[in-house]
């Protein structure tokens, strides 16, 4: 059975150049982003902090240019590609980053941070936690694209306006 998915934002996600949103399943208290942080904060604390730092820097200083995100089909992911980090004089962690946070970049001012997992191999398909989050993100990205085409979702600056007649859904 499909569950409704809502796009929500919070005050702590509203930076000077980017407003980040996340997704929340109907009936759940936590957003997907909060679930991601909670799941990996303890075991991958350093990687989580790096991700939070880049999210803050992109949100406050650079804006959400797609070059700061890895592309995977119709979804995006953080951390930024190594070449881009080098370009903006940022360094990757010494041990590398296997943690991926999937997202949907809608404009340089709006990004939906979804959920993620551990990249265990070159192919996302072979990394179970990543694959699950990627499939979910990719599915929602397709629905959002359709909503925008039909005029059911409008982007106004850093605000998203959704028509009540259209709902995002996903079968968990």
């Amino acid at each position: 059975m499909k569950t409704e998915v809502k796009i929500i934002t919070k005050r702590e996600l509203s930076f000077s150049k980017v407003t980040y949103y996340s997704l929340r399943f109907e009936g759940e208290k936590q957003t997907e982003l909060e679930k991601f942080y909670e799941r990996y904060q303890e075991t991958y604390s350093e990687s989580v902090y790096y991700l939070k730092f880049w999210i803050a820097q992109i949100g406050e200083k650079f804006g959400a240019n797609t070059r700061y995100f890895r592309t995977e089909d119709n979804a995006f992911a953080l951390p930024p590609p190594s070449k881009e980090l080098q370009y903006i004089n940022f360094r990757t962690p010494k041990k590398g980053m296997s943690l991926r946070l999937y997202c949907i970049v809608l404009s340089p001012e709006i990004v939906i941070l979804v959920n993620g997992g551990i990249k265990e191999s070159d192919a996302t398909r072979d990394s179970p936690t990543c694959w699950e989050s990627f499939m979910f993100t990719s599915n929602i990205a397709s629905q959002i694209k359709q909503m925008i085409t039909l005029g059911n979702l409008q982007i106004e600056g850093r605000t998203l306006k959704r028509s009540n007649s259209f709902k995002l859904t996903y079968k968990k």
Partner: protein
Amino acid sequence: MASDAYKKALKEIPKHIQKDVIGSIDIANEIYECLQKKGVSAAYLARSMNKSESEVSKWLTGQHNFTLKTVRKIEAALECEILVTPSSKIKMYESQLEEAQATIDLLEHKLSCSGIKDNGFENLTQNSWTTLDADAIENPENDHRYTARILSGSEQKQFHLKTETKSSFKLEITNT
């Protein structure tokens, strides 16, 4: 002005993570400046340290996590200072002040020998130099001009002491 979200995020993220991400570019820039000053290439540094050119290139991108030992070896190879601690910086300024005082003493002696009578430095006590030292540490890159007046009867000469580099002073003499 930074957003509340940004301030909150930085408060949460440990300082060592923030420094680790953006810290090494300063060291890379210092190495680059040392190479420029010495007039040598990155390849020269690589050869003199028995390293590959690609490794030195990586150092210059700011992507390398330097150990203190590596930095000291680079300093030795380039005969320059890359990392300067606050206490050594104070010692450096103290040494500069001593040099400046010696220059002034010499000048005072020359003026005395040139027939100008009753000459002397006004308001130029050890204490006033200590104050200047603190100012210099705050703004080491600024053009500092310190003024001392020499009295010679009805005649006055004004000296402008200007720091040009970290280790040299220029003395300009103007009539007032």
